[in-house]
């Protein structure tokens, strides 16, 4: 029984020509029991920025709240919208701050840069980022999503 597998979830994001797509399942489970089929794990933070959070459902909700809060603060101070690379870095930082008591989420960030070019990143629960130009996956069936 792994904490990251307690609630379950599958997440994928992909880049196309001047576009990105992000998808997730909608299941909220407690181990083998399905509690709901409309649980939200992908959050649109603005028109050009989406974050998918896979992992422990409680931390998915907590990290989403923290991210929204940090984004609002940024936009109030900077008077401009947050770009995906900035958010990805912020998320990585906030996860590493909890290095020895982490949030059990493995996020993926998908968005369009200021020049409307695709941006993708994925990270582990302590914020180690990976930047790709094709796709990122996260959650409990990454093997299947990779194509195995």
């Amino acid at each position, binding site marked *: 029984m792994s904490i990251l597998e307690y609630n379950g979830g599958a997440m994928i994001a992909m880049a196309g020509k001047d576009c990105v797509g992000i998808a997730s399942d909608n299941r909220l489970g*407690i181990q083998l*029991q399905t509690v*709901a089929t*409309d649980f939200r794990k992908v959050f649109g933070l603005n028109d050009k920025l989406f974050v998918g959070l896979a992992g422990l*459902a409680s931390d998915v*909700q907590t990290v989403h709240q923290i991210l929204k809060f940090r984004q609002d603060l940024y936009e109030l101070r900077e008077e401009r919208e947050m770009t995906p690379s900035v958010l990805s870095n912020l998320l990585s930082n906030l996860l590493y701050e909890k290095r020895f008591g982490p949030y059990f989420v493995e996020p993926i960030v998908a968005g369009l840069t200021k020049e409307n070019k695709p941006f993708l990143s994925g990270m582990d629960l302590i914020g180690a980022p990976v930047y790709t130009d094709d796709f990122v996956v996260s959650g409990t069936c990454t093997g299947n999503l990779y194509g195995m």
Partner: protein
Amino acid sequence: MDSVLGVTYKGGVILAADQGNARSILMYQKNLDKITSLSGHTALACSGPHADVVNFSEFIAKNIKLYEFSKDGTVLSTHAQANYCRNELAKALRKGPYQVNNLLGGFDKKAGGSLYFLDYLASLQKVNFGAQGYCGHFCLSIMDRDWKEGLTKDEAVEIIKHCINEIHTRFLIAQPNFIIKNIDANGVEIVSFGEDPASA
């Protein structure tokens, strides 16, 4: 071992919980009321160790009352109360967690009857019907089958009674007493109980 059930209907929510208070091989009490009113239009059905159930539900209920007092009588919506509960559980999770699994039911004029599943790890989800504990294994499939949009209060109570019947038939632990409460535009009221919670 507690059984906690909830079913929404058009115009409200029914919450039900067993009335037992037991530990190890001892049954301390058979008339416990595990459904606490949080405000005039919401109630929290709470399952878990008695200490955590009482501490958490009283803490939340009093804080919601405090909000009403300090904000000139402003009433918090069910959605707001559910999120408040979630945040308190999430805050406590990494300090001294409350081991309580809850179903929060409420009635709002705009949203109608709503039910929120809130587990001890602070995962919150709005649902049409729900169960906490082992009873879910017996009852969720009954609710999957019988629940539909636009139920009446009596139909919702019938579903709860089917579920309780199943628990009595098939669940290993004897839970003879259940308390059932209804939340609608008129507030929180007891529909029925196995043994009067007020009896000494």
